[in-house]
């Protein structure tokens, strides 16, 4: 068993806006590109041009349909990656200490040198956020781009995770969720950000912002006055036109 820190100085994480995510997979591929080239072993792909291509991804987007009791069905795009839980079961289950949570910022990482590829952490994670790399035989997971966010070789504005930097719709936000005054904490407060599967007791750091209510237009009876006819007959319409033109 590996211990979690009793306290982390910061809680760096993502806030993902499900009202804005269009499901484009930009974050998926930017993550794949950065993390193939950077932290640890590359994210490999097996049978990349074959019948069953299967690669390692640290972030995937799923789409779910919701069919309300009344009204039209809806589609929600749901990006999924490590939530950097405060009570991360993937860490405590690790037999070698390879999985750990950083005291400085709460990021959950895998020390690939110590990872024996047993896969227990992936079984323990209720979110399915870890993937075993088939080529390297080590466990891969979201690092919050730890080699970007502190990287002095990058301009300050680029020191954020690749998925956040690339998100075209601006649906992904990065910051310190331990600081109640941070932009991400304020966003969570304003939009009713929620924990994914709180019943698991993992206390995820990442938060999701819920989709806003949809298909409300037909409820707007108050709009009726905006379509009051100006006249009931063609002659009446012409009269209205003439009077209206006189006013300009």
């Amino acid at each position, binding site marked *: 068993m590996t211990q979690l820190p009793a306290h982390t100085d910061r809680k760096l994480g993502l806030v993902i806006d499900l009202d804005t995510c269009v499901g484009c997979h930009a974050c998926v591929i930017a993550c794949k590109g950065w993390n193939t080239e950077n932290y640890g072993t590359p994210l490999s792909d097996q049978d990349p041009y074959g019948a069953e291509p299967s690669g390692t991804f640290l972030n995937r987007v799923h789409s779910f349909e919701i069919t309300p009791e009344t009204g039209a069905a809806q589609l929600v795009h749901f990006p999924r990656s490590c939530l950097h839980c405060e009570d991360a079961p993937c860490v405590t289950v690790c037999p070698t200490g390879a999985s750990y949570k950083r005291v400085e910022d709460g990021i959950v990482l895998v020390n690939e040198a110590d990872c024996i590829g047993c896969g227990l952490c992936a079984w323990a994670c209720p979110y399915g956020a870890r993937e075993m790399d088939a080529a390297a035989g080590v466990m891969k997971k979201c690092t919050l781009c730890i080699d970007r966010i502190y990287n002095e070789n990058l301009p300050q504005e680029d020191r954020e995770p690749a998925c956040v930097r690339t998100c075209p719709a601006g649906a992904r936000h990065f910051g310190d969720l331990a600081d109640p005054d941070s932009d991400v904490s304020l966003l969570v407060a304003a939009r009713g950000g929620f924990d994914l599967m709180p019943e698991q007791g993992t206390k995820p750091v990442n938060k999701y912002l819920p989709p806003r209510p949809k298909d409300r237009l037909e409820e707007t009876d108050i709009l009726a006055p905006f379509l009051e006819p100006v006249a009931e007959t063609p002659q009446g319409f012409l009269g209205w*036109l003439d009077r209206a033109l006189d006013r300009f």
Partner: protein
Amino acid sequence: MAQRHPTLDLSPKVSDEIRKTTCYMCACRCGIDVHLKDGRVAYIEGNRDHPVNKGVLCAKGSAGIMQVNAPSRLRAPLRRTGPRGSGQFEEITWEEALQTAVDWMAPLRAEAPEKLAFFTGRDQSQSLTSYWAQAFGTPNYAAHGGFCSVNMAVAGITTMGGAFWEFGQPDWERTKLLLLFGVAEDHDSNPIKIGLGKLKGRGARVIGINPVRSGYNAVADDWFGITPGTDGLLILSLVHCLLKAGRIDLPYLAQFTNAPVLVNGDPDSPDHGLFLRDAAGKPLVLDRKTHQPVPFDAPGVTPDLAHTYRRAGITHRPVFRHLADRYLSPDYAPEQVAAKCGIPAPRIRALAAELARVAFDEAIEIAQPWTDFRGRTHDKMTGRPVAMHAMRGISAHSNGFQTARALHFLQILLGTVETPGGFRFKPPYPKPMEAHPKPHAKPTPDQPLAGPHLGFPQGPEDLALDANGTPQRIDKAFTWENPLSAHGLMHMVIANAHAGDPYRIDTLFLYMANMAWNSSMSTGRVIEMLTDTDPDTGDYVIPRIIYSDAYSSEMVAYADLILPDTTYLERHDCISLLDRPISEAEAAADAIRWPVIQPDRDVRGFQSVLIDLGARLNLPGFVTEDGQPKYADYADYITTHQRRPGIGPLMGFRGEGQSTGRGDPNPDQLDRYIAAGGFHTHPIPEEAQFYKPWNRAYQDWAVALGLYDSPQPYLFNLWLEPLRRFQRAAEGHGPHQPPDHLRDRIRATMDPLPLWYEPFEDAAIDTEAYPLHALTQRPMAMYHSWGTQNAWLRQVHGENPLYLPTDLWQEQGFTEGDWARVTSPHGTITVPVAHMAALNPSTVWTWNAIGKRKGAWALDPKASEATRGFLLNHLIHELLPPKGDGHRWANSDPVTGQAAWFDLRVRIEKTAPPKEAQPGFPAITSPVPKGPDALAWKTTP
């Protein structure tokens, strides 16, 4: 266990160098930062300074790294050795390849230039390719717009002097309500997503009108799951509601549109339906102050919309009176259209009311004085913050032109075009239809064409017909069948060439167009046409095919000579103001590509090859006076070519490097672009930011930049007079007469006011036998056969089930993993299906062009794209089913010729799973080796 946290290097080196160029993973032309390590591409991200994407990048863009190492990249010029379609080739040298091409083409130019048909697909160098084709002298040139979105382009340009996407955009900063009609997941990719993010961020509302609630429609606040092909009817019903309530922008209509222009109202007059004009040809309006007709642009005029004017026994009514008569009709009441559109009447009314409320009760003002073309100074800019965007969903129907026009009509009635919060043009637009060329199509041996191929006919006299009325172009563009086919009809080229109608050709020269697969209607039949032989000669009916592509696409197997192109990171390009630049509403902008890496194969950028061929063929403009090649390569052309004195492909750093727009060629221009991040922007002054078609400050700015040589103010065309000219001809007036069998259709469809009619296929078939509409959508993370089947992206979109709506799913007892037989009037396919609830109940759909042919794209023949993937193309025909009138009617829009892909009707039956999706095609021999079994791409392991 004891903690042994490793010491991490938190500041690893990111790259040796960043090279900034332009993406080409789709058509949107975002700026990219290409990180290189040891000379290899290590990572690609968005360029933060770039006007298009402002730093962000979509999945396709980030996956570019898998494109430049794709196994499907062609490696050397190829000459066909086996039968066409076998995929059997031998590698040859460039010298052999170029000489072969010259040997084929030079005799054609000398004797019959029209025997060469040169069509380019998703070409971003149309300014060059059209110039080349013009110099060659063949009338047979166009790009792919005819099967893409020419309805949007032509409706936009003819109605308001510019179209969506490349020529304009919503005012993302100010709009409060955005309507998206028929927009799937692209066009334009990142800007729409950035814009939606901005709208969401400030609580503005988005309404999606689309049969499928995916992508942008999934995040829309309201979804109107409209029945395909009925958007025009919905829009005209909104027009009805707004007009009836007087919720239209009368001052805008009076000042900036042809609503006040007087129209001849005498049915017996030869000029019936045409404008009353002065001796100089200017349309006349009634001045409300003097009650006298005056030219529309007369200083001080107050144009009237209400009163008629009688002259010489003929009553002339303003356009506004005509449109009021038509759209106030109860035929357009929501209750009348609801069932057809699949939208309940109260929702239509609610949408109209919301448009009215936002446009007029949430109007915005910018305290910015400006002066209009009549010399009147306005003290502010008033905005109607309703923006609209549309794409192929409304466009790819046989009523798509009039539907797109109806949409612009709605925008204009609300006063939302070129006003704050609405739709804004991007330079070089706005540009009136009359400022575009007319088509040129008369071939002369050994001579260039007299002018550009593509343009805007103003009437029957401008059609591309010879003295006998025979079409001059192989695709029959600019004929009575489709007079305003301003992008040509690429989808008809192979069928017409095969049929010898209007004539046979010798050489078909294609660039970046997968006509043997997903870019053709009825793929199987096109394959037969490409391989069919003439019994008299034993030769192929289309004797020679030259093809240029960077990748081993399906089309490669059907060509005789392959000129392998580079990938987008290995080439020069210019995204030019002469063509389709990257301008934004606030600034003109153009951009380049440059070789950020060198090819590791014997390939050449197609544009450089074309320039080389031009010189070898001795084409005017491609050789110097002493017959030497005028340009070393495309880079040299980009820098030194002048289309008009001082005007070249790139606007920036001209002359000594300080001039923008006009100026002498600057040999350092490309270096300056590279140093500037691959693009150049030229801001529009504040005073000129809105009302551009009528704004003196904008017009003067555009002239100074070289967009045009004199101010070009104009009125928006609510009444589209050129259509009326064709309609008049169909009524029997004038020397240019259509064939009799087309008269009724021209009369019915070329209406000068927008109208809706039933899609032709619906009218031609028993819709009860084919009760469903079948559509495709382009996924956000994949761009059909633009590039290769990318190793990362195919893990996102490797499958394309046919999505079925709930009722159909339940009625036939489908369950997950089932297959269905899908039958149209033209063919049958058998494909995997899946359930989708957020779908119009009479619509089925799938992702576009995921299906691949075995042997193409260096994929394993067992790849899901080749075994489970499929195309709807097999169900579509370029012609409608026979009507029994002796004619075969095109499955195209009757105004523009746009391929009516989305008119497709089908029926569905559950079936036992076949071994593979049907129809199956035999594998083609791959001209490139198979890809690796595993990837772990890291430049510095």
